[in-house]
């Protein structure tokens, strides 16, 4: 299948020293550096989640104290949002794959790329520092006046950590945007780009435009808490609702930072394993941009019961329904891509099916929370908790795993055990639904979120949820095992084990440090499977 002359030197074995990793400007190595940090953050966040679920198996607050519980869900949120969901796909998979997909040697600014990893590292160390020196208990949303004068926890340090980490995201977005504009191989026009690149482009737009706003907002919290400047506390002449506007102006688009790149992954994987063009390529591409742009206009749907005018609530509800349409369009296009395909059921495709199932539920339950009359009841309940976990974990993390399984042979040059990978996808899918579906029911019955204790009639559903989380944990640990195993025992992957069309598959696995021996010249679209006669190697 490949005629590439294999070089014995690749990006992994070219240099061996620790310094060669910590000072690398190679986007592929930087992607792996992110993989290490994000995996660590995921493990820490998962431990916090385990604490939450264990506490909630009984209605009484008996396992941990209320203050500990409040720290657990806060630190779970902070870790998962800022250190897993936002960086996972762009910073790990995007970093690794983007220049390869463009036929480029590296990103536009390799040194800035390394800098953003160090900024991320510093932010993470400071945030972890805040966690081990007492923790933080404001919720990941940092709502004042609680965060500025009510909480006795380590708000300042955690805020500084999040503030710093934001710059990593901005720099990565900037780097990717310039890379996509300037580094495309000859012949690689915009409409020949893989849809993952379109998704990263849309994501970069949000990272660049949105992240500074949350940075300023967190800074304002620090100034109010530290110096008593009255931005948000009414006693100082401030307005607590102003914070919510500023915070969600970033943090709602941030949801799209989390979900757009995995959506791009889904397009790649579904095309490869259906052996077809992605149905409605340009609609899928532009829906990413539409989501990025409309995503900036819906933030106040987090404030429907926070004292905003009913007329502005009406406008934001309308815009929220508008932003749902491009997501629906993507889902229909993925479905149509399967039609008359030649569907090869390898494990990345199983993760994609899992993504579609969970993202469907996550997206469709957004129609409930966007509905003003229903949202008043379900706002701040477990319904919302279930809804956003379906998007962020069911969607984003499932998509991340689909991508990791898809590109793992490219990254490491080795194959993992396909059957185990399918089993893991199945366990995650089942465990996830067991964990979070009962929470929709709990939420509609009125169980508020962030509750350490709850009325006893809700125990059965909470036990189901905790039981599901156990299955979910097994599903997440399993890939760790077979991926490690593949490094030592895995079959050699070859350049193109999936017989895929993208440029990243036209170089050897693992790629050479410069990616391609000769800059490739592109003459066709990204998914021309049906034009091509695929031969066995």
């Amino acid at each position: 299948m490949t005629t590439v002359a294999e070089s014995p030197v690749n990006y992994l074995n070219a240099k061996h020293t620790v310094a060669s990793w910590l000072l690398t400007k190679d986007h592929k190595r930087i992607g792996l550096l992110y993989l290490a940090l994000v995996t660590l953050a995921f493990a820490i966040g998962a431990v916090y989640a385990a604490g939450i679920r264990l506490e909630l198996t009984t209605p009484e607050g008996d396992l941990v104290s209320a203050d500990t519980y409040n720290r657990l869900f806060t630190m779970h949120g902070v870790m998962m949002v800022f250190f897993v969901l936002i960086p996972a796909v762009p910073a790990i998979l995007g970093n690794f794959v983007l220049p390869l997909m463009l036929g480029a040697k590296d990103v536009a600014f390799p040194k800035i790329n390394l800098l953003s990893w160090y900024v991320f590292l510093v932010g993470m160390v400071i945030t972890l520092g805040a966690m081990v020196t007492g923790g933080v208990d404001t919720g990941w949303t940092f709502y004042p006046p609680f965060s500025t004068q009510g909480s006795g926890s380590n708000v300042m340090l955690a805020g500084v950590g999040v503030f710093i980490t934001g710059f990593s995201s901005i720099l990565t977005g900037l780097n990717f945007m310039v890379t996509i504009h300037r580094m495309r191989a000859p012949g690689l026009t915009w409409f020949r780009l893989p849809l993952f690149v379109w998704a990263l482009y849309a994501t970069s737009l949000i990272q660049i435009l949105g992240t500074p706003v949350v940075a300023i907002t967190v800074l304002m919290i620090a100034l109010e808490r530290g110096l008593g400047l009255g931005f948000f506390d009414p006693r100082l002449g401030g307005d607590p609702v102003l914070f919510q506007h500023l915070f969600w102006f970033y943090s709602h688009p941030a949801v799209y930072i989390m979900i757009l790149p995995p959506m791009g992954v889904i397009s790649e994987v579904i095309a490869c394993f259906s052996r077809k063009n992605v149905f409605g390529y340009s609609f899928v591409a532009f829906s990413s941009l539409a989501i990025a742009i409309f995503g900036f206009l819906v933030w106040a749907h987090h404030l429907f019961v926070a004292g905003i005018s009913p007329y502005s609530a009406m406008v934001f509800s309308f815009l929220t329904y508008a932003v749902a349409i491009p997501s629906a369009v993507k889902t229909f296009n993925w479905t149509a891509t399967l039609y008359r395909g030649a569907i090869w059921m390898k494990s990345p495709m199983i993760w994609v099916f899992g993504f579609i199932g969970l993202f469907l539920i996550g997206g469709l339950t957004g129609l409930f929370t966007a509905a003003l009359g229903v949202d008043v009841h379900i706002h701040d309940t477990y319904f919302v908790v279930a809804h956003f976990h379906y998007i962020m974990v069911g969607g984003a993390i499932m998509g991340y795993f689909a991508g990791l399984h898809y590109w793992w042979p490219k990254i490491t040059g080795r194959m993992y055990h396909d059957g185990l990978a399918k089993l893991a996808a199945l366990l995650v899918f089942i465990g996830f639904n067991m964990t979070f579906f009962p929470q929709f029911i709990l939420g509609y019955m009125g169980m508020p979120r962030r509750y350490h204790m709850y009325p006893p009639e809700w125990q059965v559903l909470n036990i189901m949820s905790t039981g599901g989380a156990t299955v979910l944990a097994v599903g997440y640990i399993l890939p760790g095992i077979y991926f490690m195993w593949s490094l030592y025992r895995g079959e050699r992957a070859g350049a193109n084990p999936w017989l895929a069309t993208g440029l990243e598959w036209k170089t050897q696995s693992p790629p050479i440090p410069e990616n391609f021996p000769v800059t490739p010249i592109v003459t066709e679209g990204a998914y021309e499977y049906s034009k091509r006669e695929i031969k066995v190697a």
Partner: protein
Amino acid sequence: MLSGIPLFPEQASTMAPAVDNLYFFIVAVTAFFALLVVILVGYFAIKYRDDTGLRVGAPITGSIPLEIGWSLVPFFVAMAIFVWATVVFFQIVRPPDQTLDIYATGKRWMWRFQHIDGHREINQLHVPVNRPIKITFTSEDVLHDLYFPAFRVKADAIPGRYSSVWFTATKTGEYHLFCAEYCGTKHSGMIGTVYVMEQDAYQEWLAGGGLTGSMSARGEQLFQQLACNTCHLGDGTGRGPSLAGLFGTQVELQNGQTVLADESYLRESILNPQNRIVAGYQPLMPTFQGLVNEDGLMSLIEYVKSLPADRAAAAGAAPPAPSGGE
């Protein structure tokens, strides 16, 4: 326990069926689209399965009519939900004209309710069945949220301003009330019980002791203690506007705007009198910030609400036209 696992909240207000009907409609719509996609994905995955990995798919790139179709159909469905949900929402946020008013304050970590007749309760609320109840509330410290799942209503309690929820309970019984906005250590302990009672049981409860005088009587005392009465004369000849019959009217301001004299406006006029000066009056009034607590403010407002317009008319001086507190 297993036989009696509750899966749906009780419908105990006039609003509950309205919200639930909309909810079931969205459940039906979303279930339809979810099943459609799941069935198609499953069907295609089986029908077009190729275990060799060597065949290629059909050369299909897209279809404009399909794209337009599956953009427009979801859009119109979404608009149907949007319109219905907005209609329900305006019913939730707009109380009817005649309500039984109750005041509440959230503070870490308790809810304090004040009835107009002077009854006070903590983390308990007694209300009559089949009567529209409006609760006006604020917070003394951080954000809270007053939530009645059985009535399908909630609103944030925000320090420095008033929020309100209203409901008409339709079934007697005991229901949860929760704090739904995270507020620190004992957030999940900031809960209580609403007792919905038959009219006569409610009257009996009202008659039972513990009265410290009605809210408006307390408000009147404060009105004199704080010397409000030296400027706000009932006949409109004082340095401040007459407050008789003021509540619920439109007030003309110095800057040409008008404002509805509701609880929030009265509160603002006591705490930040310079913000909105009534047309024809000087900005002379000092702030009462720090001189009167949340309960006192509510009593003052209840007192102003109790002042009938005809009292001013009887005094023969103030015009019946609206006037307002500075």
